[in-house]
């Protein structure tokens, strides 16, 4: 994996947003968003439903054009199908009769978007898929039908699927949702290892910061078109959040957890980056 030539001797930032603005009709989702995420950084994106967390991922994936400003991923303008991006969707149980084995699901993450049969380089492909499966401890069920694996096992495969292509940026859309605590820990540990070992930047959309709080370098908090970007210590304070929400909000630290009081817990949301086409949605 070779990146673009470094400008003035520095590695390009993994993600850069300058003056980024998205509007839906008359409604401005967010505007003048400036953001620079260096390699290896773990950024949590927080905010209530409808604040544009998922839209931010769509922008980085090149699926949603900006109304103003620019977006660079790994030094290049974001574009649909761009290389160097891994994507972990919300955990959703895969249909039991889905005609894929674990290794097929991971393999699609490597070259599923390429045309042709890919008969050349089969050996190298198999090697990379095996390595990705082993890295998440899924080698044991590599040949099992994905639909018959547990939610935790499926989400490990999702991480392997996102990492097999050696991405420089990993985008995660609520990847811990509906996983139990043990699996939440496993999945966040796998993501954390990756960014430490390979310098992959992580953009982690979540409604609940606590499971990943020890890993988070910076937080992007979106509320009603307003935003704050900074370390958890800077952003997750009563003062900052009260300003963002324009109401009295209190942030309490209870043991190692942050508890935000005064705003309605957004709870589980189920906005996907894309609606599943009916063709395969069962």
């Amino acid at each position, binding site marked *: 994996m070779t990146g673009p030539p470094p400008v003035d001797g520095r590695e390009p930032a993994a993600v850069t947003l300058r003056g980024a603005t998205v509007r839906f009709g008359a409604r401005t989702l967010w505007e003048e968003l400036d953001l620079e995420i260096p390699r290896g950084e773990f950024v949590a994106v927080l905010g209530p439903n409808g604040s544009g967390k998922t839209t931010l991922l769509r922008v980085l*994936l*090149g*699926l949603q054009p900006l109304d103003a400003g620019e977006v660079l991923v790994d030094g290049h303008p974001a*574009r*649909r*199908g*761009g290389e160097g*991006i891994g*994507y972990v*969707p919300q955990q959703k149980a895969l249909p*039991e*009769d*889905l*005609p*894929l*084995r674990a290794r*097929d*699901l991971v393999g*699609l*993450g490597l*070259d*599923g*978007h*390429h*045309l*042709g*049969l*890919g008969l050349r380089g089969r050996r190298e492909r198999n090697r990379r898929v095996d390595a990705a499966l082993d890295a998440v401890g899924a080698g044991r069920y590599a*040949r*099992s*039908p*994905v*639909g*018959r694996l547990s939610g935790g096992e499926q989400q490990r495969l*999702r991480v392997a*699927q996102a990492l097999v292509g050696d991405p420089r940026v990993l*985008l995660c859309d609520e990847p811990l949702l509906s996983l139990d605590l043990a699996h939440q820990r496993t999945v966040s540990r796998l993501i954390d290892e990756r960014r430490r070992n390979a310098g992959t930047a992580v953009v982690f959309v979540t409604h609940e910061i606590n499971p990943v709080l020890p890993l988070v370098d910076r937080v992007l908090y979106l509320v009603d078109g307003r935003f704050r970007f900074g370390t958890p210590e800077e952003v997750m304070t009563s003062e900052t959040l009260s300003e963002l929400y324009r109401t009295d909000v209190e942030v309490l630290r209870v043991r190692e957890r942050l508890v935000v009081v005064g705003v309605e817990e957004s709870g589980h949301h189920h906005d*996907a*980056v*894309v*609606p*599943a*086409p*009916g*063709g*395969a*949605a*069962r």
Partner: protein
Amino acid sequence: MNSPMDATANDVLGKLFSLDGTGDLLAQPFVRNALLAAALLGLVAGVLAPLIVARGMGFAVHGTSELAFTGGAAALLLGVSVSVGAVAGSVLAGLVFGLLGLRQRERDSVIGVVLAFGLGLGVLLLALYPGRASNKFGLLTGSIVSVDSTNLQVLVVVTILVLATMAVIYRPLLFASTDPEVAVARGVPVRLLSPLFAVLIALVTALAVPIVGAILVLSVTIIPGAAAARVTASPVVATVLAVVIAEVALVGGTVLSLAPGLPISGYVATIAFLGYLVCRIIGRARGQVRTG
């Protein structure tokens, strides 16, 4: 001890399963054409079937085949080539179904509406057709004599076209069919692949109509895929297995239908169905796919 009933039953069995003269018939050019056509159809149908099943498109395929029947009936009445009419009807239906909304329920109802109308229209067109009745019946149940060398040439061209297209789009199509959310995120043009695949299905359907008949197109475009899915989750193995089942059903059904001189569609559907049963039993025994 032979009651008249047994005698009748034996007669029917004898009529259904007879190989008297099969050897002579196999030497006939028209039989060779039919066998070649069956083999080509088995290849393309087997390649498409697992994806049709994965995308839950069984009903759409059925609707497409009924519209191929409508198109064929219209062509018969107008005095143009039945194949051309069938292709026109099924491609039109395929495009409509391929562009349909995203929700399963909406798709089901629209397909049902179009299918019912198309079938009704087809029956009316056939009733207006003054020619021989066997031509009419052939569209519904298939007929071995309908395969001439012109059909065969078209079949070869379409087979190559469909296989070449599949070779190019197979990976993104599999991605879009099994994991649409991540496929879109990775830039797969899911909305473009859907009508494209529908047109491929329509072409194969239109080819299958003269051979197995509109009513039984499902037997070669669904059953092999459904059967393979019972025993394997590997897309490659499923495709190979579906091709084998489709070939055995189509070629085997053609051979078995020769001596009795009955429509091949019944034989094809029965062999395919037996293949499905065997796969279900194997799948259950191996615990590969849980039954719900």
